[in-house]
């Protein structure tokens, strides 16, 4: 093991042993809001998300497949 690798390994170990404590900036209101969402609303969101993604990815894929055939 060369000196280079040793220094690299040591600094990696030091970084792992002494991490910086992380202080969160959460959002309690958001959490409450999510917890208070009734299942029917959640279902509506799910549906809306699927509608958006399916249409958008449909357009994307259609463009590419059509162009593949174009030439």
């Amino acid at each position, binding site marked *: 093991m060369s000196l280079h690798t040793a220094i690299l390994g040591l600094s990696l170990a030091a970084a792992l042993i002494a991490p910086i404590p992380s202080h969160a900036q959460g959002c309690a209101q958001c959490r409450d809001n999510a917890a208070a969402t009734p299942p029917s609303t959640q*279902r*509506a969101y799910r549906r809306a998300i699927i509608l958006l993604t399916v249409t*958008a990815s449909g357009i994307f894929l259609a463009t590419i497949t059509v162009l593949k055939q174009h030439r």
Partner: protein
Amino acid sequence: MPSTITPINTERDKKRRIEDHDHGSGRRPPTDKRTGGGGDNNDNWNERSGNKGPRERLSRYRLGLFCALAGDLMFFVALVSAFFVSQSTGRYNVYNQFVNEWLPTVIPPILWLNTAILLLSTVTIEIARRHMFRENDVMDEWLGLGKPITRRAFPWIASTTLLGLVFLTGQALAWHQLALQHVFFKSNPSSHFFYLITYTHAIHLFLGIGALATALIALKVSRSLETRQILVDCAAWYWHTMGLFWIFLFALLAFFQ
């Protein structure tokens, strides 16, 4: 062997020499007898290079239009997905009960009539569009025997414009009827969406009527068959798409509230 010979030493500046059948697009062979097939850029049909060839301009404008319509589709899909979310969004009141203020807006029955009119206009514009490409008439125009294509397509486009205006009037009547029932834009989450969707669709149809009017003027004014074909073709595809969007939006408003 190219069927039209374009001189190399063309003029840089546009000059109009009507008596010489040169209406300002540079020096050309006597009359602008283009087949409308778009083969005007490279009339040698046997040796097509890349995307050059018949109907090049037409297919370019069509593609541009379809890209714009794809964006438009996303616009309406965004509204529809917001519709689904709002429909089931509620809140908890002070007694901790879940309240959903959504009251379905009853569709004014005139909308059924409007839908039928819009479907009819789709048929008329499609007939007009097909007239633009009828081989016999294209050939007649190419031979210089008048403007049979314009003669045949004009009434159909005019009737489409009329039907479009009737549809918009019908929509205005529907808004009026709702207003008489005291259902306004701001009344209820459901009416927000009813008005938002019908208004934005009506704006799109206004643009479509603008396109149809342009096509009507161009049919009378323009000598280039290809220009006329492009305008009518693009207006027609736009109109079809708006009809299709309306079917879906109407189904949403009528059955999914």
